[in-house]
């Protein structure tokens, strides 16, 4: 079991080798990085077999900070939750490492890329395996740093550098919340170790404190996991290389927020209001970003908005108290979303950097492997039976319904419909029909090299099977038997409140499946049967279309909210000015002219006299006073000393 220490250590060794000698080994950097992540993945599987028996390892390696009674160890926690996360991270990470060999092979910063990638793996594993909040925060910041470095990987491109900065800054807002949450945890529970904090959890402290802690933690999760309103950085993060988008901004880092919420479930369970907030934010985000994804034309952005939407589902699940389901969706999503990104990357690679889906189409024939795997991933993402996405998403929706969160549940259903629609819009536009790019590009269409294609196939295999194998029957599959005991308390409480029958479960599944099929069918209608229909619809509903195309203008809104408000105020004031004031002015001017002769005399003699008199007085006074400011420092010190003297006198003799 203690083998687990190798899991984060191997990528770290990779970082050291590639980071220090990257310039030397250049084109062979992947040998180090891929073997590091591969071995790490292997060890992770070994740990899984040992942990499958239900063993939990809470291992303090080293006393990290020891200041007074503030103690934080560097320690590892291996329990079902962290094992699942560890597996997802190492396995998907390994596949993406392999994929990157082909995708990045002619980049001039090859070694730097793999260094960052390994550093990311290390930080993410620290985040996942930490046994206390502070170490988790270290990993949290580490992955944030890697995200920044990798988004801005092509830093000579201004948009990439800007996107990196945006991600970093938006995440700061969330991290501030997280950090405040940590402070609060420390001051309330006197420790940052999970085991000690959760042992100290006591409902008698009142829900207020738990609500405060969990909401602060959730602010952190919102930043990292790109939830409303802090989601704005994720679409821009697509400026990074596509493997990065797949690994960091789809499969692993962005799910850290969900992991953190699940990890803190003992705290969240005592704060019903916070759970409500989590569920609502999740549901709203799911629908909101899915609606944006409907009309985007950049292949990676569609997938990015889809990611935000799916993260929303995870939070919806967590908010409904179904942490296990949320983590399950996290796992399945990691597979099919990584696959989608890698597929998109494959397409982009084949088209030499073209990302606009209006210039694609009919790629099925040219790149069959990519197309097939992409189709499977789309089906999984849309939640079609029996692929992975169906099981996990269905579970989340069912749990939301079961726990009486009707509105978030409805939001989830709408989101499911939208998801199916935009996924297949994307698929049909890219892979079917005829090619809409220029002739030159058409000649160069090609299937990706094997080391890019194989990860696709592997991921596709898992996207298809993982849900059925581990998640069937819903809520009682292999996965659940492994993970769910961790969240036992919740389940029991919730189970008593609303025990659902099998029939309602099947009915719910049928409902969401129907909705998903409707979405697919609609997309088929729009983009296969009658390709002119979308244009017509866009013309008819211009307002909505533009609203969605411009992503609800949120970016612009954040930018200009104060400006617009200011402008409106000014316009109002101008109206007052021109209408009321000017009228009054004109009327009164006549009167004024008459009166002014009278007042002129008054002005010249009396007022001027007074003003000049005061001015003379002040001038004379200040001419003398300014001599006080001599420019000689010691004069000032003397004045200060006099003040001290005065104070001494006061304190010694007056205020006794």
């Amino acid at each position: 079991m203690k083998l687990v220490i190798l899991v984060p250590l191997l990528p770290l060794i990779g970082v050291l080798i590639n980071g220090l000698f990257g310039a030397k080994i250049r084109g062979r950097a992947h040998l180090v990085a891929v073997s590091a992540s591969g071995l790490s993945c292997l060890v992770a599987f070994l740990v899984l077999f040992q942990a499958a028996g239900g063993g939990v390892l809470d291992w303090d390696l080293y006393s990290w900070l020891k200041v007074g009674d503030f103690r934080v160890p560097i320690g590892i926690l291996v329990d079902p939750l962290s094992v699942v996360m560890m597996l997802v991270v190492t396995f998907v990470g390994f596949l993406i490492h392999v994929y990157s060999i082909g995708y990045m092979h002619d980049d001039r910063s090859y070694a730097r890329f793999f260094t960052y990638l390994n550093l990311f793996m290390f930080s993410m594993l620290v985040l996942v395996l930490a046994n206390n909040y502070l170490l988790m925060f270290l990993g949290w910041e580490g992955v944030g740093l890697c995200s920044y470095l990798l988004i801005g990987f092509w830093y000579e491109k201004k948009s990439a550098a800007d996107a990196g900065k945006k991600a970093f800054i938006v995440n700061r807002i969330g991290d501030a919340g997280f950090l405040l949450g940590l402070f609060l945890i420390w001051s309330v529970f006197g420790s940052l170790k999970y085991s000690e904090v959760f042992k100290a959890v006591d409902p008698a402290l009142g829900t207020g404190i738990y609500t405060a802690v969990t909401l602060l933690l959730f602010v952190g999760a919102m930043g990292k996991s790109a939830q409303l309103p802090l989601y704005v950085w994720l679409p821009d993060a697509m400026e990074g290389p596509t493997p990065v988008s797949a690994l960091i901004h789809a499969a692993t880092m962005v799910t850290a927020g969900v992991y953190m919420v699940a990890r803190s479930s003992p705290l969240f369970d005592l704060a019903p209001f916070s759970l409500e907030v989590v569920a609502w934010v999740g549901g709203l985000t799911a629908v909101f970003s899915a609606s944006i994804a409907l009309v985007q034309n950049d292949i990676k952005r569609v997938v990015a908005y889809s990611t935000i939407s799916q993260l929303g589902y995870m939070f919806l699940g967590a908010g409904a108290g179904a942490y296990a389901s949320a983590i399950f969706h996290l796992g399945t999503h990691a597979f099919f979303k990584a696959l989608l990104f890698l597929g998109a990357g494959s397409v982009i690679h084949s088209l030499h950097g073209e990302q606009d889906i209006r210039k694609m189409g009919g790629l099925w024939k040219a790149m069959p492997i990519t197309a097939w795997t992409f189709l499977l991933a789309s089906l999984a993402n849309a939640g079609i039976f029996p692929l992975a996405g169906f099981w996990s998403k269905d579970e989340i929706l069912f749990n939301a319904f079961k726990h009486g969160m009707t509105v978030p549940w409805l939001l989830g259903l709408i989101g499911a419909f939208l998801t199916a629609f935009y996924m297949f819009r994307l698929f049909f536009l890219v892979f079917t029909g005829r090619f809409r790019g220029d002739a030159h590009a058409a000649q160069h269409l090609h299937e990706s090299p094997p080391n890019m294609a194989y990860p696709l196939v592997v991921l596709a295999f898992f996207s298809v099977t993982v849900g059925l194998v581990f998640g069937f029957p819903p809520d009682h599959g292999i996965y659940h038997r492994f993970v769910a005991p961790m969240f036992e308390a919740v389940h029991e409480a919730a189970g008593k409140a609303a025990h659902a029958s099998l029939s309602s479960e099947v009915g719910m599944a049928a409902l969401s499946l129907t909705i998903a099929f409707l979405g697919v069918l609609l997309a088929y209608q729009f983009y296969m049967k009658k390709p002119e229909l979308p244009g017509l619809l866009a013309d008819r509903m211009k307002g909505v279309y533009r609203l969605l195309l411009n992503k609800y203008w949120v970016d612009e809104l954040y930018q200009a909210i104060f400006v617009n408000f200011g402008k409106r105020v000014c316009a109002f004031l101008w109206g007052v000015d021109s209408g009321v004031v000017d009228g009054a002015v004109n009327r009164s001017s006549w009167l004024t002219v008459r009166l002014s002769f009278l007042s002129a005399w008054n002005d010249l003699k009396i007022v001027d006299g007074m003003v000049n008199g005061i001015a003379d007085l002040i001038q004379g006074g200040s001419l003398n006073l300014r001599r006080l400011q001599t420019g000689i420092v010691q004069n000032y010190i003397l004045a200060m000393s006099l003040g001290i003297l005065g104070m001494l006198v006061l304190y010694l003799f007056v205020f006794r």
Partner: protein
Amino acid sequence: MVPLSHYLILSAVLFAIGMFGALTRRNAIGILMALELMFNAVNLNFVAFSRYLPSTMLQGQIFAIFVITIAAAEAAVGLAIVLGLYRNFKTINVDEINLMKW
């Protein structure tokens, strides 16, 4: 034993001498030296208190350490400023450097 007030008065003497120097020396380095005297007087006070008042045991010494540290920083920055003054004015007599007035 020497009573506490002896130390306090000695410290007051040193402080007053330092203050007098800071108020009257023309040479900027002389002023810095006078400041160091004042720092020393304060430290003496701290250490004496930490010796004589058992409830404050060692706190005074800790503070004295901080004061010494800060005095070192002050001396370094102060002397750098003096060198800057000398470069710009060719003098370090502070009463000749009085451009910041009116």
